């Protein structure tokens, strides 16, 4: 019964995080493409879109904290290791990539989206490895 409550709470926290993440992603798309395709560069609406995106982002942060706090010891350890690796790879890889850009060793500009993709993929792979390691 206790564990069922615990499992139910984890599922609830995960669904909550998914809801906030999806809302935030959709608001990001709205704030990005709205000025181009929906309200034709109306600055007031663009500002509202950006503020909405930032507020939903705050929701994502709190939902993430709640989800992490609900996990058990091992799950927290797996998450912590994955986040540490993703942060390290993000900083080192991101700065190296930026150096390649500023020194003109690569033809294209270093984009923030590329850094986000790198961090996201590193985090996913690290979680997968962590789950395997403690199986």
């Amino acid at each position, binding site marked *: 019964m206790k564990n069922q409550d615990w499992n139910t709470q984890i599922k609830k926290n995960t669904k909550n995080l998914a809801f906030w993440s999806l809302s935030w992603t959709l608001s990001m798309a709205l704030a990005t493409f709205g000025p181009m395709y929906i309200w034709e560069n109306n600055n007031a609406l663009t500002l509202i879109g950006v503020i909405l995106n930032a507020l939903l982002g705050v929701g994502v942060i709190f939902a993430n904290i709640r989800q992490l706090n609900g996990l058990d*010891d*091992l799950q927290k350890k797996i998450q912590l290791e994955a986040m540490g690796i993703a942060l390290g790879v993000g900083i080192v890889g991101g700065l190296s990539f930026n150096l390649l850009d500023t020194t003109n060793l690569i033809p294209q500009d270093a984009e923030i989206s590329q850094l986000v993709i790198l961090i996201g993929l590193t985090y996913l792979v690290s979680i997968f490895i962590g789950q395997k390691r403690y199986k």
Partner: protein
Amino acid sequence: MKNRLKVLRAENDFTQADLAIKLEVSRQTVNAIEKGKFDPSLPLAFKISKLFQLPIEEIFREE
């Protein structure tokens, strides 16, 4: 750290899933502790100690 969790679980006729329910952790966590892949936190060690009514040092010991 070594532990006697698997033996104690068997003595009490618990499955890993049963123990996970009682400790409010995932079955993966019980399995990882039993295999010595993961050392529990102090609160979880106390929970285990309370469940089996044994002092922590009789369940866990340094390698």
